[in-house]
């Protein structure tokens, strides 16, 4: 049974329709790459899953219908989001960001420190004063501290220095090796995604146009729909 299942999902920003029918399925413990060019509906799909945007169609998580749930209830089912643009709580310290919404489970401060040793050195520092890469690590750590079953990363490495990007991808690789956590990664870094994800869904003009095993993603699809 799929942990996350989307079928014929449509969504609109006011009068402007952004999703015209997105289908995807993600099993427990799997990692899925959601790809596509800019403006094709990747972030909108993430918003629909996290209930930050009204959406129609079939949206199910862990056997429950997401369609009528408010955002916080969807998150409490076990959906952890690392939003585009990091969006940490700027006035709180690193430690406070991590414990503000923490829930009991596998992930605690010690494990997050293990994953991102940089954060351990900056626990008393306000999030607003961190570098972009550190804020991204904090955003991932904060989502992990809610002990989700599914971690969604929306453009987690966008705009970061190559060294920091490598650190983030290494951390995601470590999460994969540890197992137990499902990942839905929105990104354009095909090479890194290939090392982590089992499945891929490609979006174009608000629709899913290709879905399958990551290993089967051919050059024809990537050239036509992703632009690489």
């Amino acid at each position, binding site marked *: 049974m799929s942990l996350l299942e989307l079928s014929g999902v449509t969504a609109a920003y006011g009068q402007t329709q952004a999703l015209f029918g997105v289908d995807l399925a993600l099993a427990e413990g799997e990692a899925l790459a959601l790809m596509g060019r800019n403006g094709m509906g990747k972030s909108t799909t993430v918003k629909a899953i996290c209930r930050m945007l009204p959406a129609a169609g079939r949206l199910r998580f862990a056997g429950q219908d997401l369609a009528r749930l408010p955002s916080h209830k969807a998150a409490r089912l076990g959906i952890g989001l690392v939003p585009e643009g990091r969006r940490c709580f700027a006035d*709180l310290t690193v430690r*406070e960001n991590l414990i*503000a919404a923490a829930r009991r489970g596998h992930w605690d401060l010690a494990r997050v420190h293990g994953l991102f040793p940089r954060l351990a050195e900056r626990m008393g520092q306000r999030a607003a004063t961190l570098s972009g890469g550190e804020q991204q690590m904090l955003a991932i750590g904060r989502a992990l501290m809610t002990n989700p079953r599914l971690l969604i990363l929306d453009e987690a490495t966008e705009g970061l220095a190559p060294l920091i990007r490598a650190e983030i991808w290494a951390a995601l690789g470590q999460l994969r090796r540890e197992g137990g956590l499902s990942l839905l990664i929105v990104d354009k870094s095909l090479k890194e995604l290939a090392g982590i994800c089992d499945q891929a869904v490609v979006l174009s003009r608000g629709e899913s146009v290709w879905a399958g095993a990551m290993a089967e993603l051919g050059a024809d699809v990537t050239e036509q729909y992703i632009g690489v």
Partner: protein
Amino acid sequence: MITERHLNLLILAGLILVPLWAWAADEPFTITLATRAVIFALAAAGLNIALGIGGLVSLGHAAFFGIGGYAMGILAHHAQSYTALSTWPFLIEGTKSMPVIWLVAIVTSALAALVIGLLSLRTAGVYFIMITLAFGQMFYFFTISWAAYGGEDGLSIYIRNDFPGLNTLDPIQFYGLCLAILCAVLFATARLMRAPFGLALNAARQTPARVETVGLDPTRLKLAAFVISGAITGLAGALFADLNRFVSPTMFSWQMSGELIVFIIIGGTGRLFGPVVGAATFVMLEHWLGGLSEYWLIYLGGMLLAIVLFGRGGLIGLLTRREGGA
């Protein structure tokens, strides 16, 4: 420049030493002024949880201050007149016991805050300010027309309520009691600010949408803060009524709500000791400048303007350097 923690300790020392000096120098009026400042600080400390941490600009917190005051006034009035508050379905009598009065003040204020919060938190921004103001004014006009408890003239209490083991008529002992409650509330607030609830509330003030994505309900967080805040302000109202041995509809007036906000802004919004500094400054200006001119509020207005324009962290922000920065 000193750290905020050190300044807080200095303020606490002042709160202990100044009344002790006044007691030794046989200056009971100074102790009464200090008691007034401490009770106002307690009321504003309650509001600071909703406003300072939760970002809820309530212009109706006088409602809880007044409810606490009337809880004391009504119970003490029935105790001094030996009449029952209610005979059906249960016999409810008045009381002179401070702990019982405080409990009633806290519970009634919290219940009122729950109802007002449930309705008001459906709105935000200027609408929230207006709806809380409307609730405060509803209580104000209700008590004006509540003839059974003095109506517009208010209710005089000829007794000072009792606290086990203390002579509450002795100004220094009553001051000590009020200060102990203020310290307990400030200690609890400090713990709350560092607890996940306080942090989440702080985060909800900054960005409600982001808080939702980590599984927290910002409305519920704000409602809880509003109820806690109302309960503390209600307790302050009961103490204020005991200090003056008088309650009147002015405790519910919007000016009272405005003054509580002013205390917080002067001291420093969201600062633990902000309400203490603000209330103490207000009472000192009221006493000293009020003796020079009946237009002393002009000076307070000028000070408030200067703080809003040049010192967003209030007097505490101006005197301290921020901790936990870069």
